[in-house]
Structures are given as C-alpha cells and as structure tokens.
C-alpha cells in the first residue's frame, strides 16, 4: 500500500536557525495521524512544508506521489487548515467556502458548500462576514473550506484552537470519521488531552526533531513510567516524607516548612497510598499537585531522558 504522505530526511532552517532536523515518516491512507509537540517545536513548519508552502532545506516531501512545490494540481486532492487566524474578512462564510469549491473544480460548488456548512454547523452564520467571526467559528469555516473538495489528504494545524467543548467534540468526531472513510488525516496539537480522542497514531516533535512515533497508548505508558515530581502541602511534611520513604512509595523528597516535593516513578501507587498514609498518621493534606505534568516536561523526558 502506497503512503499518502512520505517524508524523508526533512530539514528546514530559517536563516541559521534549524526548525526541523532530519524528520522522516510516512502516513498511509485511512490513517488519522497526530503530530504533538510543545509550542515552537516545529509542528506548524512541518505542516507547511508538507503542504508545499515552504521549501525544505534538505530532504524530500511526497504527497500522493507528487512534490507539492512542483505540482500545484496536487491541491485538488490535498487541503490544509492553517493555524493562523488570517482569513478573507470581507467575504461571508458561504462565499469563502464556495470560492474554495470553485477553485478545486467541484462539480456542484453550491451544493457542496451547503453540505460542509452543515457538517461544521455554520449554516445559520453562513451569510455573515468572516471578519465578525470568533476564533472558533473561523476555524470551522476553514475546516469547511478544506473539506468542500473532499480531499484525499487533509492537513489540520491546531484545528481545535478557539473551539468550545461542544464544537471540539464534534470536530474530533468528524476527523475520526474522515480517517475511517479512508482519508489521510494529519492533525497537529499541543494539547495532550486531545490526542487520545483524535486517534491512536502519534508523532512527537520536539525541538525540530522526531522524538517518538507510534501508538499513543504505548507512548502514554512510556510517559507514565517516567519519574514524576509531586508537590504535597501538609501539616507535618517531614514526618509524612519519612514514612513514605520507609514504605518505598517514593524515591526521594525535598522538604520545606509546610510542603514536600516527592519524586516517584510509580505515580499510580503514590496516588493510591498518599491519602491512607496521611489518615493513618493523622496528618492533614492541604494539596497534592503534580509539578511536571505539563507537555514540555513530558517532551523533555522523551527527548532528553530527564
């Protein structure tokens, strides 16, 4: 089975700054692939190079067997939803989507426009100018414009930005349906919680490099196995730390006057035991908060092993 997207040794630099460094991967048709990475990791640049908007400094990009920089006719079968809010502010949503339909040689642009307006739930606002749209509505209009030509390959750069929880759920369901329908869907996100719902196959980009790739759940396990730091505020932090160390629940602790930062590689075990141990010792817990659960920490672990 031929890959819909094939990236080989891709590097990209702005002047002397490397943004992407030797990235290689393939995405088959019928796959919904998620690119995750912290802000500034190179996700948007990767999307733009795959879309042909930017030329790679090194390496090869092939979409449906074609180099998008050399063959613009590929855009009949490929669409990008850019992250930027930029949009034709003086056009209505319907005009914007119809424009995309006409320029993609869609057989019945008006009917196709109506179909995708319904898909993204913008029918009631279709007559309004895009300049008056919220960020979430603009995103949905851009998604509709990308879908109107029924592309084989769909690139979505942070498509859930600005969407409210209901719209977010609807869009996630839509992207999964597109993958199920045999489309190649490449979605970027910097929000880990979205990833599990978007699909099971992920690419982790950090500092311009491909840090990890594969099944999301395996990756998540790998993330969960890393050492965690948890800040606990309690009445007697020193006594609490001593007992937890004695019972091998934690690997180490750093105690201050009213709090203690625990290191543990078994975060689930820690979660199960901290409250019963505190109750047993008569210690009142005032707060239990992970201090390294942000995305950057996860990527730091994956990339640098710390």
């Amino acid at each position, binding site marked *: 089975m031929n890959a819909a997207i094939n990236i080989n040794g891709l590097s990209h630099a702005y002047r002397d700054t490397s943004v992407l460094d030797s990235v290689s991967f393939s995405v088959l048709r019928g796959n919904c692939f998620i690119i995750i990475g912290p802000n500034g990791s190179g996700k948007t640049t990767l999307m*733009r190079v795959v*879309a*042909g*908007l*930017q*030329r790679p400094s090194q390496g090869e990009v092939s979409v449906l067997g074609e180099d998008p920089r050399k*063959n*613009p*006719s*590929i*855009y*009949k079968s*490929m*669409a*990008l939803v*850019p992250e*930027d809010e*930029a*949009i*034709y502010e*003086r*056009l209505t949503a319907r005009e*914007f989507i119809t*424009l*995309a339909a*006409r*320029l*993609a*040689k869609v057989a019945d642009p008006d009917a196709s426009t109506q179909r995708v307006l319904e898909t993204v739930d913008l029918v009631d606002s279709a007559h309004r100018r895009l300049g008056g749209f919220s960020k979430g509505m603009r995103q949905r209009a851009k998604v509709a*414009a990308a879908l109107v030509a029924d592309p084989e390959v769909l690139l979505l750069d942070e498509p859930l930005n600005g969407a409210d929880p209901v719209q977010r759920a609807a869009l996630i369901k839509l992207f999964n349906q597109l993958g199920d329908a045999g489309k190649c869907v490449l979605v970027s996100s910097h929000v880990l919680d979205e990833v599990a719902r978007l699909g099971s196959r992920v690419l982790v980009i950090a500092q311009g490099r491909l840090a990890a790739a594969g099944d999301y759940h395996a990756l998540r396990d790998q993330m969960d196995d890393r050492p965690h730091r948890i800040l606990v505020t309690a009445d007697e932090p020193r006594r609490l730390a001593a007992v937890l160390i004695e019972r091998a629940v934690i690997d180490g602790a750093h105690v201050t006057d009213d709090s203690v930062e625990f290191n543990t590689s078994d975060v689930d075990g820690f979660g199960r035991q901290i409250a019963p141990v505190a109750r047993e010792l008569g210690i009142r817990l005032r707060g239990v908060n992970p201090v390294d659960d942000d995305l950057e920490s996860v990527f730091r672990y994956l990339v640098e092993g710390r």
Partner: protein
Amino acid sequence: MSGAVAPLRAIAVTYRVILRQLVTTGRVIALGLIGVAVAVVGWAVGRSNEPFEFIRLENAVGVVSLVAFTIVVPVVALVFAAASLGDTREDGTLVYLWLRPMRRWTVVVGAWLAALTVSVPLTVIPVAVTAVLLDVGGELVWATVIASVVGVIAYSALFVLLGLLVKNAIVWGLAYIIMWEGVVAAFGSSAAKVAIRGYTSSILTARTGVELQLGDVSQAVGIVVPVVIAVVALALAAIRLDRLEVA
C-alpha cells in the same frame, strides 16, 4: 499542468476575491480626494488670463505632466497594485490562493486586473477632468486619457511585482516614484528610458506638440514600451509567486 483549474476561471475567481479585499472605503475616499485636489488645480490654472494660446497650452501640459503623471497615476496604482498580492502575503491570506490547483500566473493576472479595476477610474477620471478644466482643447484631454491608461497599466504590473518582492511595498514604491521617476529620470535620457514617466510624457508631447523634458520618443513607442514593461513585470511576478515561501 493536468488537473489544474481552467485559466480563465482561475483569473475570474482570483479577481473577484482580491477586488473585494482591495476596495475599502478609506482607500477610495483618500485617493478620490487626491483626484479632486488635482482637478481643483486644473480649474485654477484654466482660469488664468494668459493671452497667448501656445503658452496656455504649455502651462496646461506642464500641469498635467506634473500632477497627473508624477503623483496621481503612480501613487494610485501603487496603493492598489502593491496591496493586491502584497497585503495577502503579509496578512497570511495568500495561502488560500496558493493551495489551489491552478497556475500561479493566473493569480498574478487576476490580482493585476483587480488593481486595474479600481485604479483606472480613480486615475483616468480625475486627470481627464483636470485636462478639461485646463480648457486648452480636446487634444490634451485625449492625450491625458491615453497616457494615464498606459501609465496605470504599466505601474500596476510593476507594483504587483513589488508587493511580492518586499515588505512595506508602499514605502519602497513611494521611494521609487520620488527618487527614480521623479528625480533620477529627470537628469538623464538613459535613465528616462527605464522610467515609465518618460513614456507617458512622450504621449503628451506627441499629441500636443509641447516639448516635455522626458518626452523624446514617438507615441507608438510611448504606448508599446509600457505595455512590454507590464508583461515582463507580470511574468516576473508569476515566477516570484511560484518560488515564494508562503509564511
């Protein structure tokens, strides 16, 4: 390019979109006021009591050459043509034309036609009215209309290209109009050969018989060369667009 949108359809759709983005009330009013100011100058000069017909004609051609072809035509063309693709490049909306299965030259031509659609009435009408108010006969009016159409065609193509080459194209374009078309070209005949104003002045000279500093080629050359400049500028703009890194 197989599978591409038909060129005429691509040009028409690009034209409509860019025209909608270009025509803002602020731009039209500001540039319309320049036209009104020029017409007022024409009216004031036309009311002078100069008894000699030829001196009146010389004065009138001088006014048209100065205010119409060093200010109105290049500046109006600059504002709309540089914005046609330059603004879309800078505000990020170029991506919606780039990511379409169509030839890049059709985008350039659509943008140029959109710029012309706004620039032609905003230049030709006020400068023609100015020529009428100068009250020296129909030949100056015709010469002004022909030269302004030729000028706006060439300047628009040149400034569409400029909008794709540099950021802040308005600033660079004004520098070009003032420094090259206004100053450098006035000092040397070779420089005038590569200044559009030299050709518009030649049309005025050829049709009115009034010698102008830069008007030293025939009317035919004065028309053909700016058209060639426009074609070359549009071709270069298409190549530039094709090679552009769309941010």
